[in-house]
């Protein structure tokens, strides 16, 4: 189409090049407008909500909005000297107001996250606050000795920061002190790094296991005549189409102590009736069930690559004297790498965000990072921490998504 020259004019006298450019622009706009509704839909109901949540990982306006006076007063406090009477007065005024507005619980919860035990300090003091008189610092201390403790005020100062590093640091088992230092969380409260590492460990094992099981199967299907391989493909697609919950339930029936596998092992004399294996409600259970659930995601991309490889390459290699192994390893295998890469990254991405299976069959040592995020969303109600953990997980996933796009290309994603 580029061989039109400047001299070409259409009947209305406009340069054809210009016209073409206009028409190209038009079709660009047409294409874009077709995508626009979905883009807008996803922006409103997906992207913005998630960003909204993730921003909570470093924003916490609760204290600053509900206790404005003390927030202002604490701004100039250095965190080392004992707080002034002015700060105490602002605190008492804030407490009275918070009690009246029934927001004292929210404030207390916020400060309690920084220093355990301050919740009741706040609720108790707030109940007595409207009877307090100057000097306020003495009145506070008279109500509860904890007001004398510098740590209490440091925790309040940290809580009053609207932009706070506390949650993101907590997501990697660190904490922020009033002196502005970052220190490690007490040993017996560290959990997130362990969970992140375990999540990666489980995902890597599952990826390798699915590769080990999936590659031969894909190879077999690719080498069989189409009619047979289509039949086998259905055996791969059926689990793919079966509800995740159904498959997890199935593994409970298979692996529990009175389950099919243990029954069979006892019957075969592999183990005694009273020494059945613990195959479920632990990491083993999570690994087995996840491998099963993610196996089709490995087989399908490898198979679709293998289908396109002509058998003549291997035959040629063999005819030139290569052994079976050399022909496979030096000629065939390198050609399947794109499929292996696609499958591996896909399985890894899906595995790392897994929630349901570990929640149902993971017991205590088979829990993953998603489970703790859900715990903070739905049980402990520490949404800020959930957001922080989510942000760390998301960064991790996006890195692999980018990798996938680079090496495989999103447009090459296929289903079944």
């Amino acid at each position, binding site marked *: 189409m580029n061989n039109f020259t400047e001299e070409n004019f259409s009947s209305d006298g406009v340069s054809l090049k210009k016209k073409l450019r206009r028409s190209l622009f038009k079709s660009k706009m047409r294409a874009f407008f077709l995508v626009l509704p979905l883009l807008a839909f996803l922006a409103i109901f997906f992207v913005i909500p998630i960003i909204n949540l993730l921003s909570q990982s470093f924003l916490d306006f609760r204290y600053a909005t509900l206790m404005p006076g003390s927030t202002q007063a604490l701004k100039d406090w250095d965190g080392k000297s004992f707080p002034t009477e002015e700060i105490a007065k602002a605190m008492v005024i804030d407490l009275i107001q918070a009690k009246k507005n029934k927001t004292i619980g929210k404030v207390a919860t916020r400060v309690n*996250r920084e220093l355990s035990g301050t919740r009741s300090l706040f*609720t108790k003091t707030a109940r007595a606050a409207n009877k307090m008189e100057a000097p306020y610092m003495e009145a506070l201390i008279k109500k509860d000795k904890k007001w004398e403790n510098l740590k209490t005020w440091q925790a309040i100062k940290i809580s009053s920061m609207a932009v706070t590093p506390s949650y993101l640091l907590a997501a990697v088992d660190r904490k922020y002190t009033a002196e502005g230092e970052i220190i490690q969380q007490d040993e*017996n409260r560290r*959990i997130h790094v*362990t*969970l992140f590492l375990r999540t990666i460990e489980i995902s890597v094992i599952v990826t390798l296991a699915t590769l080990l099981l999936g590659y031969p199967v894909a190879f077999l299907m690719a080498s069989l005549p189409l009619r047979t391989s289509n039949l086998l493909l259905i055996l791969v697609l059926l689990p793919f189409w079966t509800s995740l919950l159904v498959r997890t339930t199935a593994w409970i029936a298979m692996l529990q*102590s009175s389950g099919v596998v243990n029954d069979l092992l006892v019957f075969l004399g592999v183990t005694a009736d009273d020494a059945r294996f613990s195959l479920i409600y632990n990491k083993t259970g999570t690994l087995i069930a996840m491998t099963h659930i993610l196996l089709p995601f490995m087989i399908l991309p490898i198979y679709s690559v293998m289908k396109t490889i002509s058998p003549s390459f291997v035959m040629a290699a063999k005819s030139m004297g290569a052994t079976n192994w050399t022909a496979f390893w030096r000629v065939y295998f390198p050609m399947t790498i794109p499929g292996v890469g696609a499958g591996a990254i896909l399985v890894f991405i899906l595995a790392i965000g897994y929630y349901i299976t570990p929640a149902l069959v993971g017991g205590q040592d088979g829990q993953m990072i998603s489970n703790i995020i859900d715990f903070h969303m739905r049980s*402990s109600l520490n949404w800020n921490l959930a957001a922080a953990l989510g942000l760390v997980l998301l960064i991790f996933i996006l890195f692999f998504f980018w990798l996938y796009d680079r090496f495989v290309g999103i447009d090459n994603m296929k289903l079944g």
Partner: protein
Amino acid sequence: MKLKNILIGAFVGAGLATSVTAGSITVVSWGGAYTKSQVEAYHKPWMTKTGHQVVSEDYNGGLAEVKAQVDAGNVTWDLVDVEKSDAVKGCDEGLLETIDHGSLPKGADGSVATSDFIDGALTECAVANIVWSTIFAYDKSKMSNGPKTIKDFFDTSKFPGKRGLRKSPKANLEMALAADGVAAGDVYKVLGTAAGVDRAFKKLDTIKDSVVWWEAGAQPPQLLADGEVAMTTAYNGRIFNAFAGEGKPFEIVWDAQVFDMDLWVIPKGAPNKDLAMDFLKFSTATEQLAGQASWISYGPARKSSAPLVASYHNKPSLKMGPHMPTAPENFKTAIANDFEFWADNGDELTERFNSWLAK
């Protein structure tokens, strides 16, 4: 957008088709035998008396759902049965409606509500209905010479087998300390120190490998029945029901029981607040509380109900008195759950508990 209108229209249609008639409240409780006792003692008589409907829902405790509904401005629950620490926490956070104690009915003996209810049963936003307890239990038919004290629960060499525990630090830490020799009255004093918490976790460490964790109240009796565990902690009423109702050979050990209250609360902005309040008053009257105690072995929260508690609803020979947490025989080493301690330290201890579990 037109599509949206159509969608909304479709929902309204779908909603109408499935929603219940006017004059209906949603009452949320812990499910299983406990909810059943409430249905029999509260819901059914109230429905007969007023002609309104009660929709019963189950949950596993905690404030998460209430908070979600209140924050979302879409409250669908009218009345919720909560633990005391949650009742206090929820009230402080402004999630619950306040309740006027003066409007509660007088006791059957004529005493005003505020003096008829036992200590701590009335809070700013909640009214207690029962006293319940976390105990441990075992299957008599499998253990003829069963455990007697909380020490035996933690002794896996003398009493081999798996142990069931609630997946939460609550009650577990108290029982661990009791098993380690701390007197019932001192449990929270010890637990208030870092060394005390370490001590409790160290005690739990001794059985960690043989623990099966449960979350819902209905699980422990099932774990015992399936033989998955040799003994398990449980809510006393659930075990009682398994042997009274289903004839299971379970035995409760009352040593170091941790007792607590369950209270009714009304979420802020509940859709049928007035009806819910009416139900609350009705269900916490002397007669209803006593009636519930004939279905499950939880102690009524009113003093005036105690004399009316007699025997199991369909077994006149089965007297309820000795099965109550408050029976003197059972109460000797009881630990009163300190709701303030848990409101204060619950987050940190849960964090530590989770970290301990994950190791």
